């Protein structure tokens, strides 16, 4: 027995070594738990197919870093703040890697994500490991229901704030209502979970159109690899549709729009979900983007200001354009607001380092941000703050800096946002 200690065998040496390493590995996290550092994790689409959605995030994060560089004082106590930034590459697969990194390895106190895939991947882990998480930039139905949530129950530690897909469809109808048309709408949808939701006969666009007295000429779903829409377009032409709507990405819309022109169909209105959220997709249409309708989550003309920097929406967009030389995009507002909500939740928690206390801090939060009020406390849907939307049209700018500008044309769902211009029919 004693001999074992004086000349240890190789096996017992390894065992000792492993124990020592394990102690060494765990030591920092014990030290961290006792410290005053709040770790905020971020997972977002900094690259990949949704990179447009995350394009403003690095810039927004820099502003937050400046804001917290001397720590945060909450309830009279000063905390250091550490930001852990991760790119989920717009992939579900990589999102799970990032999720376990942020939750298990980095042990963040709070996680923020502006991406649907990342919110899915982090959600389950965060709920079981008690890490309060706030997500955004996905219609709340697309976040709540696929994860098996219900409006009366919600989730224990994961929260979401954004507008609903029903609001998106209502903004479309408000654009159509403002025009004199034959009320015949041609629709087509990209075949993915979001598209299937939007084309749902009871919950989606077909129901909303029917309620408002429109007839639908449905071309149905199409595959994401589609590059030709001649059949759908000839169907719309034969049905003499005045309005085109549905859901597709910008790379589908360009050939679709060209084939609409080739077929001789001249619609009076066109509003597609997702196709032209960003100026780059409208710019790709050349002269033929004037009057295209889209849902608007945020523009520099929203009459709100940042709770972090005190900047107005206009000032934030102006600073972005000055710093980067690029036109503002809608995620600029939500990307900033996500950090506003995160910091407000920390301030609203009795002990920001305690997950249950921070959870309460989010659940009882009702705060004003650059995108408008974000109210978890009085929301009819648990774990969710439903934000507003307005309707917009892309208009050719008259001698402006950029070829197209997004103008607010209807504010039925958010009356505090001023209408900038009247709805115009497409001029093709």
């Amino acid at each position: 027995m004693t001999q074992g200690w004086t000349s240890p065998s190789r096996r017992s040496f390894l065992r000792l070594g492993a124990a020592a390493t394990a102690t060494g590995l765990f030591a920092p996290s014990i030290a961290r738990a006792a410290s005053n550092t709040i770790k905020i994790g971020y997972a977002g689409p900094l690259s990949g197919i949704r990179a447009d959605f995350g394009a403003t995030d690095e810039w927004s994060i820099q502003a937050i870093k400046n804001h917290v560089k001397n720590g945060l004082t909450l309830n009279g106590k000063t905390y250091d703040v550490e930001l852990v930034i991760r790119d989920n590459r717009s992939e579900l697969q990589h999102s799970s890697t990032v999720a376990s990194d942020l939750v298990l390895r980095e042990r963040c106190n709070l996680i923020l994500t502006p991406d649907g895939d990342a919110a899915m991947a982090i959600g389950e882990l965060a709920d079981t490991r008690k890490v309060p998480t706030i997500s955004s930039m996905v219609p709340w139905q697309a976040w709540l229901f696929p994860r098996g949530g219900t409006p009366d129950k919600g989730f224990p530690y994961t929260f979401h704030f954004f507008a609903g897909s029903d609001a998106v469809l209502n903004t479309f109808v408000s654009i159509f209502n403002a025009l004199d048309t034959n009320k015949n709408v041609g629709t087509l949808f990209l075949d993915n979970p979001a598209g299937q939701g939007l084309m749902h006969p009871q919950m989606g666009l077909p129901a909303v159109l029917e309620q408002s007295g429109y007839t639908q000429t449905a071309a149905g779903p199409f595959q994401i690899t589609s590059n030709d829409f001649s059949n759908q377009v000839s169907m719309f032409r034969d049905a003499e549709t005045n309005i085109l709507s549905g859901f597709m990405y910008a790379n589908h819309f360009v050939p679709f729009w060209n084939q609409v022109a080739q077929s001789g169909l001249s619609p009076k209105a066109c509003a597609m979900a997702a196709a032209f959220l960003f100026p780059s997709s409208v710019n790709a249409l050349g002269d033929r983007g004037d009057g295209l309708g889209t849902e608007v989550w945020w523009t520099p003309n929203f009459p709100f200001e940042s709770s972090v920097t005190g900047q107005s929406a206009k000032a934030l967009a102006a600073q972005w354009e000055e710093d980067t030389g690029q036109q503002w995009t809608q995620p600029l507002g939500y990307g900033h607001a996500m950090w506003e909500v995160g910091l407000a939740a920390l301030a609203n928690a009795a002990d920001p380092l305690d997950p249950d206390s921070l959870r309460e801090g989010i659940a009882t939060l009702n705060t004003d941000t650059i995108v408008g009020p974000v109210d978890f406390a009085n929301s009819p849907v648990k774990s969710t703050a439903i934000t507003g939307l307005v309707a917009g049209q892309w208009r050719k700018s008259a001698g402006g800096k950029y070829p197209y500008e997004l103008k607010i044309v209807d504010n039925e769902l958010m009356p505090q946002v001023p209408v900038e211009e009247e709805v115009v029919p497409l001029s093709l």
Partner: protein
Amino acid sequence: MIQTTIELLFQGITLGGLYGVIGAGLALTFGILRVVNLSHGEMITIGAFVAVGLVTVMPALPIALVLVGAFAACALIGGLLQAAFVERAMAFRDPMVPMLVTFGIAVILRNLLVETAGADLRGLDVGGIAQRSFQIGGMSFGALPLVTLVLAVAVFVGLSLLIRRTAFGREVRALSDRPEIAALMGVRVKHVYVKVAALAAGFAALAGVLLAMRASVSPYSGVSYLLVAFEVVVLGGLGSTRGAFAAGVLLGVVQIVSSRFDSNAGLLYVHLTFFAILIVRAISGRLS
């Protein structure tokens, strides 16, 4: 009904012509250099971006000159890459080596393009040709599809004349059949290879310009057409340019007609057709 069918076939044949042009360059490198050129998709994209650049600088440029410019730029790049890298890789007996080299070139070119041009979608508007159409007997035909078809026919007729009627074509055919003997007869093998690679890259550029006018391009668009290009090449018979045209048209017509009956089919029936023909060939013993 007849009118709809004619419109449908027109769309299918013109899309097929485009697929043919996409496959033409690949068939050329496959048939003559015996190299599976995985950077073909990037040549398509670069051609499109050159065209976008030309039109941005000179908006009044006619489409013919845009095509010539893109062709020349990509031919230059393709020729240089062949001379500098692929040629050396071809010295190895293992066909995997040049394939991997072209794969590496593809990755580098794609990322260079993202870094320099950005990942935005770009549209190419040459004098509004993509939206123009003409009417015959109550049917509406797009001008761009027609231009695409004319160009596709010109590419294949030109290629066929070049290979069959010129001294260069004779060297190419000789090299394709028996490279060693051709070399013994004084054919300057490397020169011919560089010219063929340049030609293939040029054709890719033409396809890229047509694609950009039809839809839009981003640095990632070329890759997505590589699969179609391979199907065109394999269906058309490895290395056969005329076969590539026929295969392109077949696949284009299948895509358009199938989506008439099933709008959600996408490229499913295109791939199924490809698969079915492969099976028929395997059974009849004509796979290679």
